[in-house]
């Protein structure tokens, strides 16, 4: 396809997005470039690390370092990004230089791998002095699962002051008889942020001694969301169902969220609608709708729609467990044209969490709750129903009490 960007150069909106992503990236790149035009890079890592996926099982690993000193934790803590604009986020990320060294995933004893692991276990920002093989180069890279990534540079050596490790994470990391799964769950219960668990998980910090490996960041994010939400899901099943239909909603980064909780045992579905010209539907003329769902027993295959499914499941199971209730949950997401670049699955997790913090509207029937869809979302209700496997299932599968009369089962 002939590049539309060449014809447009940010002036004609030929791609249909309401702002030019190339210009947004370029602006931040220009701001950062002057600060990093050198083979020496000094700054405070938020702390942040990145483990790449290309070349697996030999992957690029290294700390994220901004050319500034102080408390930089905001730059790599998506839990703090709700309410920020896409420009803010691109700004945070383009100032983080992704340093990298190729390391085999089993080679967790590698000197750099050890330092990177300690950085991921750190309790606060760490001053680092990196010597680079080449000057940082590249623009901000976007991905559906990982937060946008800044320019990268091959790492020659790393100097650092002593790192003060987070005690809770360090304790689990030191325990080589504790499997990674329970370690992650314990850290979550201890109140460690998901993003920090994910970072330390990616550096091979947890698990039985022999099984420890580096895990590409994007896989680590979803593994952690999956492990935690599975454990929460099994716990909420021990509790009674909610006793009303609830609707929660929010809007963030031009994504609209509609969350319906039903007074039934656990079932879950996420349906995403991408408008033409949004991140994942660049050339389509029609809105594309995708869904993934699970019944009471959960699912075995990886969700069709990817990591966002697990991120949102974490947010809803967390909310239900806090109330000691279970419910069937349907999440609808509309990605509107202002969502010009993917920013990572944190967007899903944190916006669903944010919606669930808000006051909900209560209904006594499914139909009346569903009518609310019309007020919140652009896509018509019928279209959502058509694409929903759990609404279809609820409609088609009858229940035994319908055949008994008034007494119930």
């Amino acid at each position, binding site marked *: 396809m002939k590049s539309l960007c060449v014809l447009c150069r940010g002036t004609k909106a030929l791609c249909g997005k309401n702002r030019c992503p190339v210009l947004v990236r370029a602006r931040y790149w220009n701001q950062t470039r002057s600060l990093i035009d050198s083979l020496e890079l000094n700054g405070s890592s938020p702390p942040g690390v990145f483990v790449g996926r290309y070349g697996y099982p030999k992957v690029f690993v290294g700390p994220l370092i901004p050319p500034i000193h102080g408390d930089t934790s905001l730059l790599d803590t998506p839990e703090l990004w709700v309410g920020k604009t896409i420009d803010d986020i691109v700004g945070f990320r383009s100032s983080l230089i992704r340093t990298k060294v190729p390391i085999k995933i089993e080679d967790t004893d590698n000197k750099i791998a050890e330092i990177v692991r300690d950085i991921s276990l750190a309790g606060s920002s760490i001053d680092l002095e990196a010597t680079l093989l080449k000057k940082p180069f590249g623009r901000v890279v976007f991905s559906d699962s990982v937060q946008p990534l800044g320019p990268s540079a091959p790492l020659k050596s790393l100097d650092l002051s002593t790192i003060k490790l987070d005690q809770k994470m360090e304790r689990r990391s030191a325990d080589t008889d504790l499997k990674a799964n329970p370690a992650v769950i314990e850290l979550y219960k201890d109140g460690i942020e998901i993003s920090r668990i994910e970072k330390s998980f990616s550096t091979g910090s947890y698990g039985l001694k022999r099984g420890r490996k580096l895990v590409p960041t994007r896989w680590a994010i979803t593994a952690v969301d999956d492990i935690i939400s599975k454990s929460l899901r099994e716990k909420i*099943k021990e509790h009674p169902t909610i006793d009303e239909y609830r609707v929660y909603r929010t809007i963030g980064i031009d994504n609209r969220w509609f969350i319906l909780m039903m007074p*039934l*045992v656990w079932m879950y579905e996420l349906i995403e609608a991408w408008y033409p010209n949004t991140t994942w539907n660049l050339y389509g003329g029609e809105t594309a709708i995708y869904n993934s769902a699970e*019944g*009471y027993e959960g699912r075995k295959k990886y969700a069709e729609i990817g990591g966002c499914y697990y991120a949102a499941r974490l947010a809803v199971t967390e909310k239900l467990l806090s109330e000691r209730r279970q419910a069937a949950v349907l999440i609808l997401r509309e990605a509107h044209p202002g969502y010009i670049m993917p920013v990572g699955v944190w967007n899903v997790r944190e916006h669903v969490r944010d919606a669930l913090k808000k006051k909900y509207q209560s209904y006594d029937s499914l139909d009346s709750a569903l009518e609310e869809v019309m007020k919140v979302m652009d896509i018509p209700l019928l279209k959502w129903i058509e694409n929903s496997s759990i609404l279809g299932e609820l*409609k*088609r*599968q*009858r*229940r*035994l*009490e*319908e*055949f*008994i009369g008034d*007494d*119930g*089962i």
Partner: protein
Amino acid sequence: MFRSEVKPAVLRQVVDTVSIIVGEGKFRVNQDGMSLKSVDPTHVAMVDLELNRSAFESFEADDQELGIDIEKLKNVLRSATPSDVITLHLDEESNRLILNMGNLMRSMSLLDTRHMTDPKIPDIELPAIVVMDGEELERGIKAAENVSDHVIISMDNESFELRAEGDTDSVDLKIPNDLLLDLKCDKRVKSIFALSYFSNMIRAARASKVVKIGLGVDYPVKIEFDIAGGKGHVLYLLAPRIPG
């Protein structure tokens, strides 16, 4: 007081028939034997199991309820060999079920039965009843699983039929009257069921070879078979799906 001896195969049949409906079961024991009625969390399927005391090598019980984690019991049974006789007894002081298999002792804490419901088994009259070889049916189900997630079961006075329709493929198992053990059906009946439940139920009936199925028009199906060599009986009910 509860104390009994039982062959692993019998206990395994109990576990296999119940575990497809619930993960935790409230078993009632009394001088007649053991029984359980459970409905699955989604209220789509139900099991009613009776095991006569004669199914056990020995059996003594006061009338009481035992809350048992079925998955746990399933795991315990993995360490039993066919020649074992398992001794089960309730340690009332610790509220644990103690299982002895040869030299191996396994104790299991019992679950609180207060929050477990006592489902009523709906009294459902079904116009059509077939008695047939479960193995033949299992073959049909295996094929159906490849093309769809639900099955259409129908009967008339000439045959029993199982159909599954996928987007492009279909499966049809038709068994004529003379190959069935019994068929009572005055008018044509047809209902649709979720294959996940239906196939598990038919597979659980493997223990008996002969299975009895009661069917109506868009109505729950009743699946019945014996376990423990005729000394126990299982009844399943499964709610239908709405056609279309």
